[in-house]
């Protein structure tokens, strides 16, 4: 269960305080629930995801995570360029307290990311596709209760895409998801419930179709 209470957020810009991005979002996200997060560009979807993921703090309000929540997948960062893929993977494993099962995790990550020998090369030499594959493999290596996903579905070549889609389906089946995407098809495929972000407020829908409907109506009017 992730509960947000009266979450407000605004950023400090170069010229003073920015607009309120979130204005009093109060929402409970059950653990075993796949939620799609939708809204216009700039509605604060990624901001909300970062706050849920704990890498950004709300300006006001509080958030509580009573389960293991992943870092926001698909957002930038998370890899150190001067270190090899393996060293990065080790670091993330240790960070999450998997010192004991390090070997298994590394074997899995190396295997899934299909990096081969490049796994022992510095990450800065990787192409963007290789980096994305490494990050995706990393996120699959841990058992989180809820995964946070920001526009992740299209990564790598056709074969890898197929594989990651299957893995993703597996995730969606056994863990909770909070997913940001503009792709209606993936929303319908992976999510049951929906959160619609509109003018700084969040609206919960038990069915993703209703959320998409409201979103579309607001766009049309």
């Amino acid at each position, binding site marked *: 269960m992730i509960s947000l209470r009266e979450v407000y957020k605004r950023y400090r810009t170069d010229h003073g305080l920015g607009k309120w991005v979130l204005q009093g979002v109060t929402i409970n996200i059950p653990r075993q629930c796949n939620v799609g997060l939708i809204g216009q560009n700039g509605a604060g979807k990624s901001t909300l995801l970062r706050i849920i993921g704990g890498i*950004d703090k709300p300006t006001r309000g509080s958030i509580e995570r009573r389960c293991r929540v992943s870092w926001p997948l698909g957002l930038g960062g998370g890899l*150190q*360029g001067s270190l090899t893929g393996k060293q990065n993977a080790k*670091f993330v494993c*240790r960070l*999450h*307290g998997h*010192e004991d099962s390090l070997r298994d995790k590394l074997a899995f990550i190396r295997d899934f990311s299909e990096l081969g020998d490049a796994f022992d090369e510095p990450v800065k030499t990787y192409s963007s596709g290789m980096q994305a594959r490494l990050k995706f493999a990393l996120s699959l290596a841990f058992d989180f209760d809820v995964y946070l996903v920001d526009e992740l579905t299209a990564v790598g070549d056709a074969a890898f895409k197929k594989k990651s889609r299957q893995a993703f389906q597996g995730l969606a089946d056994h863990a909770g998801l909070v997913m940001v995407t503009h792709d209606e098809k993936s929303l319908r495929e992976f999510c049951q419930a929906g959160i619609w972000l509109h003018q700084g407020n969040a609206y919960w829908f038990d069915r993703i179709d209703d959320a998409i409907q409201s979103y579309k109506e607001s766009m049309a009017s």
Partner: protein
Amino acid sequence: MSISRTPLDVTISVWKALFLREALTRLSAGRSAWLWLLLEPVAHVAFLMIIFSTIRQRVLPGVEFALFLAIGVIGFHLFKNSAQRSIGAISANMALFAYRQGKPIDSVLVRIFLEGVIQLFVGVSLLSIMALFGFDVLPNDPLRAITAWMLLWLFGAGLGLMLSVGATLVPEIGKIANLTFTPLYFISGVFFAPFMMPAVIQEYLILNPIIHGLEGLRSAFFRGYPNIAGISLSYLAVFSLLTVFFGLLLHMRFSNKLVTH
């Protein structure tokens, strides 16, 4: 399924992960980086020896000049590296903050700790090498030597904690701080003994807390080392505690701002 870790568990695993990563990058940066760590102070001492053995003939009573220099260089480097390496700690670890477990202060604390470990290793190696050359390197008062060493480290740590916040929020602070370390080297008594200075200058010299640490270290090594009036480790201790306190305070106050820019 959801085994929740206590905050302490999380912090410890973060420190462990960060320490290994920092140590790796510090010791494997470039060809034989670990060798340079040792060669740098050796070169320093050798260089100073050459200069001072030619221009200055005055001999300090009961004090080996090479050992005198070595202690000064090691002590100052301990302080300087702890403070200076902290400045870049947060920006170098920006990628880490994509995982909520890591906080800016973790990266700074880990660097300070690593620098302490490295400088301890360097210091012990340097003294051991000098022992092989026949110097009497064992401190006369080991407890005082350890205290002085720890305080110099803590002062560097405190300054580093403060500068790491300052330099991340206002980059100019980092640049100015980096410029200050060189003049600080010259007025901290690394290569001169304060008691050989005129009384007028001594008055000003002892305002600098680092001199208290270096002189404390030397008086711990050399029996009957003539400390000037006013040298006390407590003076450095006050500075160390104050800077650590304010450094931690700054980190608490600005912990959010350091990551979200």
